[in-house]
């Protein structure tokens, strides 16, 4: 079974530029999550989708971050404009369904460096 796919794996941009990350979850997984992992810290949830609807985005900095999952499968996370403090690894995860009974599976992440 293929895992969660993410691209690109690495991205370097200058502050105030825009960037987008892509995630393809495990086939059949209804729930998709985006996490931000700053160096030396644990992942922090940014947004979670159930199919193509947003379940929770309370920790997403909505003035600069946006995410969508239009067809309930792939998802994109965008930052516009980027700040230095956005440098982090962005992890995508998916689970079969919503709720604590369903384990999350993580992708390899996209490492973003903002200079």
């Amino acid at each position, binding site marked *: 079974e293929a895992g969660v796919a993410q691209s690109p794996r690495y991205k370097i941009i200058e502050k105030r530029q825009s960037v987008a990350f892509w995630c393809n979850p495990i086939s059949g997984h209804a729930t998709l*999550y985006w996490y931000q992992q700053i160096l030396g810290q644990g*992942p922090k949830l940014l947004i979670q989708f159930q199919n193509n609807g947003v379940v929770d985005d*309370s920790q997403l900095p909505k003035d600069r971050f946006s995410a969508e999952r239009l067809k309930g499968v792939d998802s994109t996370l965008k930052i516009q404009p980027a700040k230095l403090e956005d440098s982090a690894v962005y*992890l995508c995860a998916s689970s079969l369904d919503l*709720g*604590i009974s369903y384990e*999350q599976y993580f*992708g*390899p992440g996209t490492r973003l460096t903002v200079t």
Partner: protein
Amino acid sequence: ELKVEQNPLFLSMQEGKNYTIYCNYSTTSDRLYWYRQDPGKSLESLFVLLSNGAVKQEGRLMASLDTKARLSTLHITAAVHDLSATYFCAVDGIIQGAQKLVFGQGTRLTINP
């Protein structure tokens, strides 16, 4: 608000020794995870602990859960260099009305030959 705290944050030990990583959390939860992360890699699920008193073992690693004390431990027996990694615990909880996975800060484990 659900908070998850690990200690120690850094651990350097010699091969063959035993040690324990602790994970405390602040509110009631029904599920606790332990993950391993190698440098530059994603998270690998090690254990899922579902109930009070749960104990799981895989090789030299053993995890346990005490829901009354809100404490989980990850015990390493006779450490080997290959276990060098960062270990995270994560707790499922309801925050602001939504179910979320909240991670600890991580414990960076270095095992010296």
